[in-house]
Structure formats: C-alpha cells, structure tokens
C-alpha cells in the first residue's frame, strides 16, 4: 500500500510537470501579450514592462526560471492586477470555488444516487420515467442555460433566491443547483443501470434466500456493488464540476478562482494562467488519486499493491 502510494506520488509529479510544460509553451505560442491591449503604450514602456516581468529573455530561460519558482510554491505576480501575487488570488478564490464545487458535488452525488436507486427499484414504473426524464433534461441542458433559466424564474420572476454574488447560504442555492444538475443526471443514469444489473445477480437471490429484508438487501448487498462504476466516474465528474464552475462563477459573479482563470486568459496574464492551471491540475490529480484509493476500499478484488487484479 505504501509502495503503491509512493509510486502514484511520483507519477503525479511527472503528470504535473508535463501539464506545466505543455501549458507554458502553448501559452507562449498563442498570439498577443499582456501589454498590447486597449491602451497604446510607447515602445520603451513596453520594453520596460517586458524587462520587469523578465519576458524579454529567451523562452527556455523563462521556462527554467518558472519551474524553479513553482518548486518554491512561488507562482509569480499578476500582470493585470499589479501588487497581487497569484498566491493571493488563489488563497482568496479557491475557498469560494472549493465550497461551491463541493456543494455541487455533494448535491449531485446524493440526489443522483437516490434518483438512480429509486428508478431501478421501480423499474418501468412512473417513478422510473420521472427520474429518467429529469436525468435526460439534466444531461441535455448546458449549465449556463440552466443558470440563466434559474435566475430568470426563481430569482427574477419569483424572487425566492438572490440573483447573484456569494454571501449567505441562500446565495449558494442557485449556482449549486445549476452546477449540480449535469453531474447529477449522469450519476442517476449510471446508478440506475448499474443497480438494475446488480439486482439480477445471483448473490442478490442468495441474500433473499437468507430471509433478509428488502432494505437490508438493497443497502448492504446491492448498493455497494452498484456504486463501484459511479465511484470510477467521480474523478471525471469532479473535473467537470470544476470546469463547469468557471462558467457558473462568471454568470453568478462569484469571486472564485474561475473568474480569475477566465479573465487571465483574456488578458494574457501569463502568471495567473499558469498558476491557476497548475493549481487546478494538481487538485484534480489528487482527486483522481483519492478516487482510486476509494475504489480499492469498496472493492476488495482490487488490490492496490499488486499489479494483477
């Protein structure tokens, strides 16, 4: 187990390095620079700025320099927001994004599983049809449409929830719902099909033959096996929720990381682009790692310390 974690850790570092390298060079390949936007600045000013941010050095030197910096967790300083380091932005934006993301993930997982299980138990019944209709809508409607629809109906027409920003729990409801519906729908559909399959398994019949109650059979024998594929999906869903939150944060004017991420790309704020990308990647890699660990705990057939299954 320890050996496995160590090996995974090394792989994680390598993955992260690849992402840093790729993003770094892609970013510099893209046309434009942080300084030639709206304002017409003189050539000497431009040069001074380039000098200040060390952008006039050869790209290879910049790359080595940058790698060295992030090894010391120094992500540099924002170009468009002078005086603010990327670390400042991250420590301010991340807690908000994390809160929104985790809320959405929690809502998506819990409601998705409940919906899926109910649909499977009432297979081809009215509950099944309702649940799957919700799921299809959830999958087909993009979250930015969902978000604007929610704002229009629940915030403007009905005035139940505030339209935007991030302050009270009431403020969190709409963005969470908008962010959670897609993943929830995916989880619901997967849980349903997986549950339906598990319920026909021989060991469910064995459990029935033992005289266990239906609830015990579902919770102890069926659900755990049915959730294995769902757990596998969690890693990718987390990624989906994170990237989805960029859009949602923008729509609801939530001061999370997504806002800085989108803005930084528009303004070619190199250090913020790199910082947020590296941070998101790192976070995602860790999430995927946790999912793998969880998978091993849920399914004893998967041995983490051995190569063979």
């Amino acid at each position: 187990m320890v050996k496995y974690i160590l090996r995974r850790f090394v792989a994680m570092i390598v993955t992260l390095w690849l992402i840093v390298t790729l993003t770094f060079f892609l970013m510099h390949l893209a046309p434009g620079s942080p300084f030639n936007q709206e304002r017409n600045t003189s050539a000497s000013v431009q040069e001074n700025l380039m000098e200040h941010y060390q952008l006039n050095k050869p790209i290879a030197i910049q790359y080595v320099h940058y790698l060295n910096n992030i090894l010391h967790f120094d992500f540099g300083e924002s170009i468009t927001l002078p005086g603010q380091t990327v670390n400042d932005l991250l420590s301010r934006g991340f807690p908000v994004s994390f809160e929104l993301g985790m809320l959405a993930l929690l809502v998506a997982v819990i409601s998705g599983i409940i919906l899926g299980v109910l649909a499977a138990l009432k297979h081809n019944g009215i509950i099944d049809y309702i649940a799957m209709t919700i799921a299809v809508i959830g999958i087909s409607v993009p979250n930015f449409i969902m978000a604007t629809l929610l704002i229009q109906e629940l915030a403007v027409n009905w005035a139940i929830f505030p339209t935007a920003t991030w302050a009270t729990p009431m403020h969190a409801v709409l963005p969470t719902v908008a962010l959670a519906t897609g993943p929830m729908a995916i989880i619901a559909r997967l849980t349903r099909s997986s549950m339906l399959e598990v319920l026909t398994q021989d060991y469910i019949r064995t459990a029935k033959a033992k005289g266990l109650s239906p609830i015990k059979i579902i919770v102890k024998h069926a659900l755990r096996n049915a959730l294995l594929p769902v757990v596998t999906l969690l890693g990718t869903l987390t990624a989906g929720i994170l990237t989805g939150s960029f859009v949602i944060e923008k729509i609801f004017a939530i001061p999370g990381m997504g806002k800085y991420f989108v803005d930084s790309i528009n303004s070619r704020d190199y250090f913020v682009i790199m910082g947020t990308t590296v941070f998101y990647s790192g976070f995602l890699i860790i999430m995927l790692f946790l999912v793998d660990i969880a998978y091993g705990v849920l399914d004893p057939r998967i041995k983490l310390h051995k190569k063979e299954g």
Partner: protein
Amino acid sequence: MVETILEVNDLHVSFPTYGGTVKAVRGVNFTLKKGETLAIVGESGCGKTVTSESIMRLTTGDIVKGAILFNGHDLATLPEKELRKIRGSDISMIFQDPMTSLNPTITIGSQLIEGITQHTHKSKSEAKEVALEMLDLVGIANPSERLKQYPHQFSGGMRQRIMIAMSLVCNPSVLIADEPTTALDVTIQAQILELFKKIQKETGVSIILITHDLGVVAQVADRIAIMYAGKVVEIGNRQEIFYRPQHPYTRGLLRSVPRIDKEEEALIPIPGTPPDLFSPPKGCPFMARCDQAMEVCDHYYPLTSHINDHHKVDCWLQDERAKKVTFATKG
C-alpha cells in the same frame, strides 16, 4: 410412516413475456419426508429450478395456482413478511453457481453472520461462533482466518462449501440444492456429495436435490422425481426408478447414461426436443418423442397410476385398457 415435512400440490408457475405466457411448471405434486433426500431430475428447461425457487417464492415467475404446505403454512400465499422468517431459517437454499452466488464485496464472515443474526437473537460474537462451527463442519480449514476473507480468495469448490455452510447456519429442516455440483469438476462433485450425506446424517435435514445428472442421483437420492415439460411424470424411490422405470421418458433417460458395468452397449439418445411451453400440448407432453405413443396420448394427459406405495407414474401405458401393448425394450 415417516412424517411429511413439505408438500407441493398442483403447483403452476408461469412467466408472462411479450411473446405470451410461458407455462414453466404445470401442476407439480410431490411430498418431502423428514430426513430424506428427494432428487428432482429432468433435462434443461423442464421446470426443475422454477419448482425449487417457487418453494421459497424466489422465482421471478407468478405462482398461478397450487399450494406449498410447510409446517401448516401455505408458502404460495403466505405474506412476504412471514415468508422471510422461513427463508434461510426453516428452509434454505444452495444455488448452482458458487462463483456468482456470494457477494464479492463482503467478507465470508459477514455473509455467514448476517443470516444468523437475521433469524436468531444471538449476538455478533455468538453468531461468529456458529459461523466458525459451520465452516468447520463443511471442511474448511483455518475457519477463523477464512472468515475475514472475500469470495474471490476461495476456489469454486470452497465457495460451494461456504454456500452450504451458509444454508446450514440456522439449522433448517429443509435444504434445497439447485444443481449444487454442476459447476464443479468431478472430484470436487464427489466431495460435495459426500458432504451432503454427512450433513444429513448429523442434522437430519431433508434435502431436495435438483439435478440433471443421474450419476449424482444414484449416489445420494432416497426418492426420485422425474420432471418433463413442467410436470412430474414419474416419482418413486431410488430402487424403483432405477430398476423398474415405467415412464418411457425415464427409460430413455436411463438408457442415455453411460454405465461402467455393461460393456459395448451403445448409448441411446432420446430423439427430438421438449415441447414449447408457450403452448404446451393438451395430451402427454412426451408423446412426440415417445416410441410407444398411442391415440389417447394426443388428447388427454395421462391419469396418475400407482405402481405401488412408493412409485407413481403418469403414463397411459399403465392404464388397464393399454395392457395389450407389449414392450419392445429390455427394461
């Protein structure tokens, strides 16, 4: 007279499908006596498994008609909640495929213990003692270590032993074994059959053994019921069935089994296939494959003839009016 413990009367089980209703079991009658092993034999699709699963109402089909009498209850109509008290405690079941019948994500110990705590007031540690005892009884070495393991850490034969242990934890009076040795190789089969004999001797449990393997039947069965197209066509004790088979189908079955004591005797298969159970024939279902079929077989299902106290058969050849027919077979 030995006490009857389970009685199945005129059991009908059907499966509604898009293409029509499959009448899988069409009036099965048999009794199970205390401490005996009743084998239900027949080819694939004749309704053996449906019959056995119907006893515990585990079948996905509908019990259309009939009664399953056990301890003064009719299991065919007993409320689900009451039935759950009987499942796993008074009647328990072993299934065909030990590779898939155990839950892969739960330890053997937990799967054994949950059956015990479900039906008794034993604490977890008391239940664990029982589980250990049962694993020992079915011949699993090192039971306390094994309790913590998962099904994938056991071989097929071992898993079937665990299934047997699991079925015995509440000291049932009836044990239904649905093809318990079919998925195992021959040496393991012999061990499992020996185990059944040993358990029956020690606990006095009555066993219903579902199988298509007459070799297995010859080893362990006290009485044999031959099923064909959803009906029990012949039932009798082992001697009667093996040495004085009366139904042409039973004879056909026996002729198609290789015997080590008779040299150079060709195996004679039964030609044809069983009837379609979407629309079972009005008369005798075996008629189309029977070389002694008569006019009456096409129109009426045979009446049950009592050969003697231990032997019943559903065949028109036994009718007094058919006595003129001479048998071409060696018998």
